[in-house]
């Protein structure tokens, strides 16, 4: 068990923390120090978050840009793709990760031995991984279709069909990031005191009841926080789609991030590109607020 995990399962000292951080208000030199500690981050935040966002909003300020976007069927299709990509990619992945984290709790040496192999996709850098996915699926005789041919099945042309291409992107994304979330849930589960499981066992709770009555209530907020964070990250994901399907066939499997890229750097319409990605703000901002609330709930109840 790692030190972090031990700390997770650790004593109740933390309860007292919220009540009395640094008694009273800060004075004089202490206040100056607190500000000094925050200056580096504040500088980064202002120079590289606030300024670019403001600049982006300024670039995309012309309402006619949005009219142009909506009039373009490519944009509507991209929005649908993004919704599919995020909706499936995040929710299926999180649910599988939650179940798998339970599987990895089992005390069998061969399950423990599987864990380092299972997290390999996360350790592997995104570029090699997704390039490999691309070659595995491309053409008539990539590895997957070659394997299917062994079974006597003629594999489809994965990137010649929009739905298959979107599905390929989702699977590649899940392959890369599922280990990360599985480990996060695994750490959450190891922090559940063993006595609770034992009590459930004595009460005769089976696998399903244990999951529904013990694991879900205890991991519920963690699951929510992770899902929201993952949603934000997935909406902004560029690398997967750019390298796996490359938007094929004919930009029809693009998501907003890659569409914005095409507009800006290939069609030389940067304002339109910025408008395309910023049109996701009405979705992104509520999710961010939910995330803040979810994190706060946790702190208040510490």
């Amino acid at each position: 068990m790692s030190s972090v995990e031990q700390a997770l399962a650790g004593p109740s000292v933390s309860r007292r923390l919220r009540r009395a951080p640094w008694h009273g208000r800060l004075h004089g030199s202490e206040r100056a120090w607190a500000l000094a500690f925050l200056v580096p981050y504040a500088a980064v935040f202002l120079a590289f978050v606030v300024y670019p966002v403001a600049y982006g909003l300024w670039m995309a300020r012309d309402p006619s840009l949005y009219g142009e976007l909506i009039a373009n069927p490519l944009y509507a299709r991209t929005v649908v793709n993004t919704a599919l990509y995020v909706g499936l990619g995040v929710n299926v992945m999180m649910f599988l990760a939650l179940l798998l984290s339970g599987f990895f709790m089992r005390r069998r040496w061969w399950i423990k031995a599987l864990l380092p192999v299972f997290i390999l996709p996360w350790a592997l850098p995104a570029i090699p991984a997704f390039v490999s996915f691309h070659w595995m699926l491309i053409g008539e005789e990539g590895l997957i279709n070659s394997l299917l041919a062994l079974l006597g099945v003629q594999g489809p042309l994965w990137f010649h069909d929009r739905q298959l291409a979107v599905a390929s992107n989702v699977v590649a994304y899940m392959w890369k990031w599922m280990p990360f979330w599985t480990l996060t849930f695994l750490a959450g589960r190891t922090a559940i005191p063993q006595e609770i499981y034992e009590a459930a066992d004595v009460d005769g709770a089976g696998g399903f009841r244990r999951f529904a009555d013990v694991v879900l209530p205890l991991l519920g907020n963690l699951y929510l926080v992770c899902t929201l964070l993952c949603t934000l990250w997935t909406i902004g994901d560029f690398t997967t789609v750019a390298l796996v399907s490359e938007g094929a066939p004919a930009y029809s499997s693009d998501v907003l991030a890659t569409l914005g890229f095409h507009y800006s750097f290939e069609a030389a319409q940067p304002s339109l590109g910025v408008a395309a990605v910023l049109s996701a703000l009405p979705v992104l901002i509520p999710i961010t607020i939910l995330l803040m609330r979810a994190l706060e709930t946790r702190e208040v109840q510490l």
Partner: protein
Amino acid sequence: MGTLTSGPIRRPRGRLRRVFVEAASVALVAVLLLWSLTPVYNMLLIALDPDEGDIEFEGIIWPPDPSLHSFHTVFTQGYWLVADFWRQLGNSFFIAVVTMVLTVVIGSLASFALSRMRMRHGWWLVNAPLLTYAVPASFLVIPFSRLMVTYGLTNSLWAIVVANVTFATPYAILILRQYATLIPIELDEAARVDGASPVQILRRVYLPLMAPALAAVGTFALLLAWNEYLYQYVLLSSTRNMTVAVAIAQFFNTDEAPWNYMMATAIIYAMPPIVIFYALRRFMAAGLTRGALKG
């Protein structure tokens, strides 16, 4: 656990059930192995091909004539697309290491101020980092590249570093603040009563006790930098300033691309983070879960 509760009467059914559960576990392990390793195997399959790679169209699942020729070519920079390989690998290392150091330094300073010292307007300061995620990194690349012209950082590795730091620090602050709740505030107070200044408390109390979380955050930043592709692709234009990630993508822009060299480059590029990752694995991933059970 289970053996204690299943009484003697229920044993036959229990055993059957257990056999079934074991069999299902073995099957799941097999599926997960296949799932995790197939893309990795595919990389080796292409990289080990001695010909300048039309292997992917031959419909084979085993390299007919495996050879390390392509790795040799990459290591000796023996082909024009990999002519600057070592320099590009150095660039990747520079970006990753500087990103890691800056993220840990900025993140630990900010998290110390936010979690250990009572600030006015604390709520805003605490939540501002999260606002960064309201606009994903890939959405900001266009204004960002314009700004880099203003800041005089075009075609500079530092442009990539600041981009990475910008998007790694919010997560770092989140994790560090949560981990900091494990350290009793009484320690700070005791040090304070003894006349320690905030800097001394930071150095002597906070940082040593935060070491595991700092390692986790550092590894996170390192992997983020190594995974990042879009900013490097957009902001670095000259071959000598490119990183390996961009160099790999360059293969797609030529007609005669030898895919075995590309895959060999990709595999070599994948090795450093894998080594670091497995070395620091016990520190990873636990960050977010801190305090989660109280919610």
